[in-house]
């Protein structure tokens, strides 16, 4: 299938618009804070779309549509498993803003020790590089599926990378967030297929006439159990704040209230759209039963239903869904390199110097990610490793906020125990597979390493002391001082 000239024109218009936004915002970036946190001036609207952009990727649409195509409505739980964490975000994202930090590693430096800050920076850099690579790979696969091979995956990866690097390095988080707004609207348009499906099938009544009633069941015995959902929800909540991009998200808000409302609106927007994606999957099953690969369901629908022009818009939306997440990840990684790895080694330079370092680091991170993207075989397997790595330091992160007695030594031990237990389960699973024994599912792996890590955190905290009790006191004093009160912490803003 050749792309219609109208589709190519729409796609080109989108790419040019992104470049123009980047150039227009370039003048606003004068300091590190401008580059990495948009000057901490974002209100509810920008935070909504920034949250939505960071949290929503094109391959999630394809995955939900594909899972619902394969398993019926119960496939929605592949995204809804995060639903139960959502109310906690209302309370927890504010913690990041209250900390007045610029990078995820800053928290570790303030609450624990410089060593843990360095570990956090390295771990965060790994996460960022791996996640960008995974997203680029997924985006190329989706674009290939939607255009029926018209756009080669090997070409999509470098083009998208060059584009988002250019406008983000030029315009910093300002440009990234304004493009998030545009890209968020485009991502919402991915659900545009629904009216076309209902027109073909005769609405929901038509779907019920075509599909077996079991396709509308809400549960999936054996595959998506309540235990699986509960453990993955806890695991994601444990690890969510070790991801460096969450600080970029919450830290850029102008005040705590805007962070709460913006983050929650962006998150709930994604939850509502997930419902639409699930019905796309049911529609795909009704219209095209018997597809060999269920992940092709979305691409086939696009090619089948949309007129010229809208196919191009859909490809633009897929690029948008990926790039909006990549740009935030890139900036988060660059801030870790600049502030937590480079600045401690080469201190006391002008802010302009570090701004330049941040820009160079951005380019370098994406260059490594592009190379990695070509080497990735399985997107889902890659993501599982990222989820696990996020949780390694997550228990200590929460311990540091909730339990004043949590010590740096306990954070080290807990991180090490969690990592060793995860690697241990990987080794065991390999052995079990070879000897026909019970292979631990991912949820059981998570439950095991989280339980051991938590036990290690508590026991070590009870047995050790704080090296710098004054720093811990100061941290809690800050956490009990709202941004709206003038305080000794204003200089950290």
């Amino acid at each position, binding site marked *: 299938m050749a792309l219609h000239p109208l589709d190519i024109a729409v796609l080109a218009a989108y790419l040019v618009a992104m470049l123009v936004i980047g150039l227009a915002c370039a003048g606003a970036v004068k300091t590190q804070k401008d580059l990495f946190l948009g000057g901490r001036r974002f209100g509810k609207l920008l935070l909504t779309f920034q949250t939505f952009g960071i949290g929503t990727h094109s391959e999630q649409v394809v995955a939900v549509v594909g899972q619902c195509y394969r398993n019926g409505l119960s496939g929605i739980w592949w995204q809804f498993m995060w639903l139960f964490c959502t109310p906690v975000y209302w309370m927890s994202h504010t913690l990041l803003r209250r900390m007045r930090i610029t990078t995820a590693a800053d928290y570790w430096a303030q609450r624990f020790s410089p060593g843990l800050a360095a570990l956090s920076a390295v771990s965060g850099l790994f996460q960022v590089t791996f996640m960008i690579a995974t997203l680029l790979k997924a985006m190329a696969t989706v674009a290939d599926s939607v255009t029926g091979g018209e756009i080669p995956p090997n070409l999509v990866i470098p083009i998208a990378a060059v584009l988002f690097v250019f406008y983000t390095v030029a315009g910093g988080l300002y440009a990234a967030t304004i493009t998030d707004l545009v890209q968020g609207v485009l991502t919402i348009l991915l659900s545009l297929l629904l009216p076309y499906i209902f027109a073909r099938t005769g609405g929901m009544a038509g779907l*019920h006439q075509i599909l077996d009633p079991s396709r509308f069941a809400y549960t999936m015995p054996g595959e998506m159990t309540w235990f699986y959902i509960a453990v993955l929800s806890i695991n994601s909540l444990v690890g969510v704040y070790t991801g460096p991009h969450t600080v970029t998200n919450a830290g850029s808000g102008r005040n705590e209230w805007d962070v709460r409302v913006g983050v929650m609106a962006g998150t709930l927007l994604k939850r509502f759209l997930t419902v639409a994606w699930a019905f796309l999957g049911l529609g795909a099953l009704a219209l095209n039963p018997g597809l060999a690969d269920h992940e092709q369901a979305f691409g086939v629908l696009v090619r089948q239903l949309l007129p010229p022009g809208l196919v191009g818009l859909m490809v633009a939306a897929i690029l948008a869904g990926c790039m909006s997440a990549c740009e935030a990840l890139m900036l988060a990684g660059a801030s870790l390199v600049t502030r937590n790895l480079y600045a401690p080694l080469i201190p006391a330079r002008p802010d302009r110097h570090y701004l330049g370092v941040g820009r160079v680091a951005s380019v370098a991170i994406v260059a490594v990610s592009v190379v990695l993207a070509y080497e990735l075989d399985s997107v889902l397997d890659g993501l599982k490793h990222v989820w696990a790595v996020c949780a390694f330091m997550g228990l200590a992160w929460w311990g540091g906020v909730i339990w004043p007695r949590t010590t740096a030594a306990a954070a080290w031990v807990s991180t090490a125990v969690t990592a060793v237990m995860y690697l241990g389960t990987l080794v065991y699973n390999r052995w079990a597979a070879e000897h026909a024994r019970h292979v631990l599912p991912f949820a059981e792996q998570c439950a095991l390493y989280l339980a051991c890590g938590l036990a290690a955190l508590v026991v070590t905290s009870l047995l050790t002391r704080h090296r710098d009790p004054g720093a811990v006191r100061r941290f809690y004093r800050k956490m009990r001082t709202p941004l709206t009160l003038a305080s000794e912490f204003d200089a950290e803003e």
Partner: protein
Amino acid sequence: MPHETTAREPHDDGPGNDPGGGRVPPSCGPVENRDAGTDPEFGDLLLVDLLHPDWRNFFTRYRTDLGGFAVVSLICIFIVVATRWLAMIGAGAGR
């Protein structure tokens, strides 16, 4: 016994001293719970005080956290229930 160090210690200079005299910059959104600035032992974020909350003023001190949590929880329940309801529209049409 390890030395537990928190802002709860009596010699600690907490935000209760309010060095800014309670100044609230304009146009910064709703003012966070002002009680937070009056007692160094507690703040207004429930997660920070989770293991030793201010039970006496629980619903006033943590009202922003509790209210939002309740509303968002209801929205999440609504999403789950509404999805099921949407899926069953037209089910009576039969096969």
